[in-house]
């Protein structure tokens, strides 16, 4: 207990010292954290002994995703988009379902030991992209602004959209194995969970923002405590929805969207603190990923897993994105660029933790596939971000001058 805590705290301390230096290198935080977890975890030196099953760890992963869903959704302010909402809308409404479908077809052809719903789970778990990992591209001025905005909005929202789909497949996958529970019942429970999540998220956030405005105007919110309202509201939405038998992630996602819409004035200020909390939580989740998730699923490693991971990062996402962007006035280069830059990260990890805890027959293969894809993505997207951005910029300049 204290051993783990000591190692984590020492690592956070060291990282906080060199964070600025690391940002200038191609290694992003996620690589450092995951590598650290891997080296100190059971597969490496064995100093960190973390178990995904432990209640504390899955709660940590859940809270991290809840915080990220809330802050990402409230940052994606749709009304303030400079360019049209067309690109992200197409990516989310047509591209995302197609990606899941294609991922399912790929998985069906590659894996033979898995049930159909388990393959659907893999496809859904690997569909959301990670906004934090895409930051290198999204903040790079060399990329045309419509592409950056499109990627940013897409990655902020697709994880939230994937949550209900994941839960439906998860319910179907577990109910086919268990006795006495029918598919209809499982689906009803999922619908209920989503409905409760929406109601809780909208209701709590609406009340919360009203109160927040009232008290900020009265000057009752002091400097020290200004950091807390947004993280506290996000955790409240999550925990209340979970307690009522709903989906906390849905509550955070819709709560975040509503918060972004309602709290215009103070939004940025208030969100900053929540992002800091989210960053620290994400760091720890990445360490857990390296130490525990990778170690617990390494037994299911096979060439099929690697093949699927490569396909998932390339065709499974790039083809649908390329197709749906037809007629959006983008060059083929730009469309391929958007298709490639869908890094998989935190959302997929948390989904893996959730699925691991359900103890499905194919659970190890599922999580190993997710692990492998994330590792490849972290390395592939991390290394390619700056060179590809430069190449895209050069191409665009060439075509403009010719």
């Amino acid at each position, binding site marked *: 207990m204290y051993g783990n805590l000591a190692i984590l*705290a020492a690592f956070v301390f060291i990282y906080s010292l060199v964070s600025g230096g690391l940002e200038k290198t191609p290694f992003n935080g996620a690589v450092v954290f995951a590598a650290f977890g891997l080296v100190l975890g059971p597969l490496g030196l064995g100093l960190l002994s973390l178990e995904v099953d432990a209640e504390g760890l899955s709660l940590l992963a859940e809270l991290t995703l809840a915080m990220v869903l809330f802050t990402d959704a409230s940052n994606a302010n749709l009304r303030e988009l400079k360019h049209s909402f067309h690109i992200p809308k197409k990516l989310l409404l047509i591209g995302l379902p197609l990606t899941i479908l294609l991922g399912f077809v790929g998985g069906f052809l590659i894996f033979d030991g898995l049930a159909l719903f388990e393959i659907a789970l893999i496809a859904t778990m690997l569909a959301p992209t990670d906004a934090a990992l895409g930051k290198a591209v999204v903040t790079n001025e060399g990329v045309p602004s419509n592409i950056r905005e499109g990627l940013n909005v897409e990655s902020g929202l697709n994880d939230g959209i994937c949550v209900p789909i994941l839960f439906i497949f998860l319910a179907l996958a577990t109910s086919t194995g268990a006795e006495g529970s029918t598919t209809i019942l499982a689906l009803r429970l999922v619908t209920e969970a989503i409905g409760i999540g929406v109601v809780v998220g909208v209701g709590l956030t609406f009340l919360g923002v009203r109160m927040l405005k009232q008290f900020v105007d009265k000057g009752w*919110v002091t400097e020290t405590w200004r950091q807390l309202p947004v993280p*506290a509201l996000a955790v409240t939405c999550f925990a209340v929805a979970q307690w009522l038998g709903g989906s906390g992630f849905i509550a955070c996602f819709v709560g975040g969207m509503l918060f972004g819409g309602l709290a215009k004035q103070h939004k940025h200020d208030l969100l900053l603190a929540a992002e800091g909390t989210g960053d620290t939580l994400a760091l720890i989740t990445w360490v857990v990923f390296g130490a525990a998730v990778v170690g617990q699923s390494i037994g299911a490693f096979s060439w099929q897993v690697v093949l699927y991971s490569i396909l998932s990062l390339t065709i499974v996402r790039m083809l649908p994105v390329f197709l749906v962007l037809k007629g959006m006035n983008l060059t083929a280069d730009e469309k391929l660029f958007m298709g490639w830059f869908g890094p998989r990260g935190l959302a997929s990890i948390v989904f893996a933790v959730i699925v691991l805890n359900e103890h499905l027959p194919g659970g190890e293969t599922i999580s190993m596939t997710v692990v492998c894809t994330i590792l490849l993505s972290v390395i592939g997207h991390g290394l390619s971000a700056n060179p590809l951005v430069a190449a895209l910029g050069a191409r665009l300049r060439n075509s403009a001058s010719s």
Partner: protein
Amino acid sequence: MYLELGILALFVFCYSLVAGRVERAAASGPIVFVVSGFIMGPMVIGWFNGDVSRDGIKVLADLTLALILFIDAANADFSVLKKKLCIPSRMLLVGLPGVIFLGTLTAAVLFDRLSLLEAAILGTMLAATDAALGKAVVTNKAVPKQIREGLNIESGLNDGLCVPILFLFIALELGHVEGSGTMHALYLLVQELGIGLVVGLGLTAVGAKAFTWCLEKGWVTEIWRQVVVVALAIACFSMAQSLHGSGYIAAFVGGLLFGYIAKDATHKLVLAAEGVGETLALTTWFVFGAGVIGQSFDDFTWKMVVYAFLSLTVIRMLPIFLSLSSAGEKAASKLFLGWFGPRGLASIVFAIIVLNKGVPNAKFLAMVVVLTVFLSLVAHGISANPLSAALGKRPDSDN
């Protein structure tokens, strides 16, 4: 699980909205959190089951105290201490042992069921004062400067000094009860303190050097700067604990060293850590209200109220008054210094430690601590502003 988390988060959200207003009123944050914890706890509504022995709660209390020990020690400015050494050093070196002695004696006389060592444990638990609760006095400009600084330094350091004394008494008591021999218990204690000392000094020396070096290189970003002190404090604490040393000692000496090395940068860095410390502290108060108060209710006797009352008055005020006899202060100032020793978080965490160590009369001791802390919350909270104003107005007190 989710219900408790949801209520706590909702409560923190609501409190963060009105914190500014509450701070201006007579009710302090701790009172609000203790009372709400009590109402939502098993005694009234029952939303929290308040089982203090659960791992999570013990870790929460541990980390809170570790962070506070580190922060308070780092804030103790030794340049001020050297110049105005007189008041706080007398209070710490002469007053504190006196308070413990008198507290032990009173407990031994008042409570027949306690052994002498258990009485000593009680006296030590209640000798530590809480810097955060004294803030209303320490930041009040009406109070003369040397008194404010004296109180601030004293309350920042006395909890750290009480830790080894408390552990000594606990070790002796357990050695006595389990029959494993006093020498063995003492040997373990020395080992524990030694490891804590080495870990705290070693980690902080390396950490602070690395920090100043990276800061000069410009590697420390704005967002992560907030995390530095918190991470170092927790690293000291948990490293020492995992090596079977005392994490509190490690956090305390680590904080002292950090404050000394990082001099100028200390204040800015520590400020962020204080926010975390305050949130943790209020959460601990909430748990205290929900769990500890309810759990210890059945042992209640009227003698406890008498002891709590004496502990806040004679037991602390007399030794402090005597220790300052030749410090050149007016009698009113000496009484003021004696009165403003609010008992708080340190005493509570000590009580949780004693509960978990298996001292025979632990529940009884915890109940006395709870009662004293509760009385102190109310009495010191109400009297802070009026008494400060009264002391400031006394014509003979300004110099």
